[in-house]
């Protein structure tokens, strides 16, 4: 027996009513293991205008690269203090910021380790389905051997890489359209 999935619809302008109860911008509690990082950025529409009504959802592995999920074969060694999920709104300037720990390397397509990355979903009024991106970190040499980044045309890869600003701070913007349009994935 099989069914077909229910269609997506936009979150619309008033999603805050429904989504705000689970807003979480500090993803890692103080006792979580790993290197503390903060990611800041801005969301822009096709005219380069900041999007003041966007929400990002973040999903990531813990500092050892283990997901808090039954399908991760290493789940029993997962950091119990860290579940890896956040929901981050933009402000009236389209800016967002969240803190977490840098994830470890998780197995890739052929079991080889992927570069550390966060999975990001972007929601906003005027967007009919959430878009799906990844955030990599500019100071990780392993980006060069990452199997998913390798599927992205070289000239667009930078849109998925948060730039290190020092002291654990990274900058990553979302651009919905234009020459530096963020790479979005389908899977």
């Amino acid at each position, binding site marked *: 027996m099989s069914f077909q999935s229910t269609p997506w619809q936009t979150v619309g302008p008033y*999603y805050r009513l429904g989504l705000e109860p689970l807003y979480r911008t500090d993803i890692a509690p103080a006792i979580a293991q790993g290197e503390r990082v903060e990611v800041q950025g801005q969301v822009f529409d096709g005219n380069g205008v900041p999007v003041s009504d966007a929400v990002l959802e973040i999903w990531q592995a813990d500092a050892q690269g283990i997901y808090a999920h039954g399908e991760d074969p290493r789940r029993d060694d997962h950091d119990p203090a860290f579940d890896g999920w956040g929901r981050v709104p933009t402000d009236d300037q389209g800016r967002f910021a969240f803190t977490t720990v840098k994830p470890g390397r*998780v197995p890739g397509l052929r079991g080889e380790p992927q570069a550390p990355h966060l999975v990001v979903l972007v929601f906003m009024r005027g967007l009919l389905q959430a878009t799906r991106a990844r955030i990599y970190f500019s100071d990780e040499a392993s980006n060069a051997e990452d199997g998913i980044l390798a599927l992205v045309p070289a000239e667009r890869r930078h849109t998925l890489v948060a730039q290190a600003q020092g002291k654990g701070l990274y900058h990553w913007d979302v651009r919905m359209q234009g020459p530096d349009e963020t790479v979005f994935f389908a899977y």
Partner: protein
Amino acid sequence: MSDPTPLRGYRKPYPGSQPPRIHLPYASTALRGPGTDPIAIPVTLSEVTGPSINRITLGEHAADLTAGFPGQPQGERIIVSGRVLDENGRPVRNTVVEVWQCNAAGRYLHKGDQHDAPLDPNFKGTGQVLTDSEGRYRFTTIKPGAYPWRNHYNAWRPAHIHFSLHGEGIGQRLVTQMYFPNDPLLAFDPIYNCVDDAKARERMVSSFDWENTANEFALGYRFDIVLRGRKMTVWE
């Protein structure tokens, strides 16, 4: 190390059954939808895992949007229930369903809503419920009103309730809207009609539910939700 067995990916959506990147009749999509098609990638653990948001503390009145205020909200009380399944027919258990809606007069309790319709001091319009061990959910609310918006001249949104679901993996994430049967505004609504396939659109329309209509209390509406399913084999 030998190659591990690849992970099973998600089934591809049937053509026309999901909205496009940009749908110009819904004007805001012109600058906010992605300019280019997404890049298809095979799944890794990052795409098939996802949060387990079932440990949240649900508020006392989270499944009854009519409760928690000094009085009863204005409007027609309804009971909305259904099942959350995946495309393989498996129930999605213990997953949180977030809902939000406007009041019976068509006004959201949100500073951005400037529609000249009354707010209701006894209605906020937000709820959260968990599915049970068979994927069933249920909440009590009032029927939301239609309301005007500025997409085009004389534009009206059909009555709807927003639904947000997480499923078991990030690839199953879904935000949708539940509509009501026989609503004449559906034919004119560019958001509902952003989905090309008529049968797919109809999956967003609830049905009147006699079984769950409560005597002298509330009409029932049934809304079943199907999240994407994984392929049965890697090679499917």
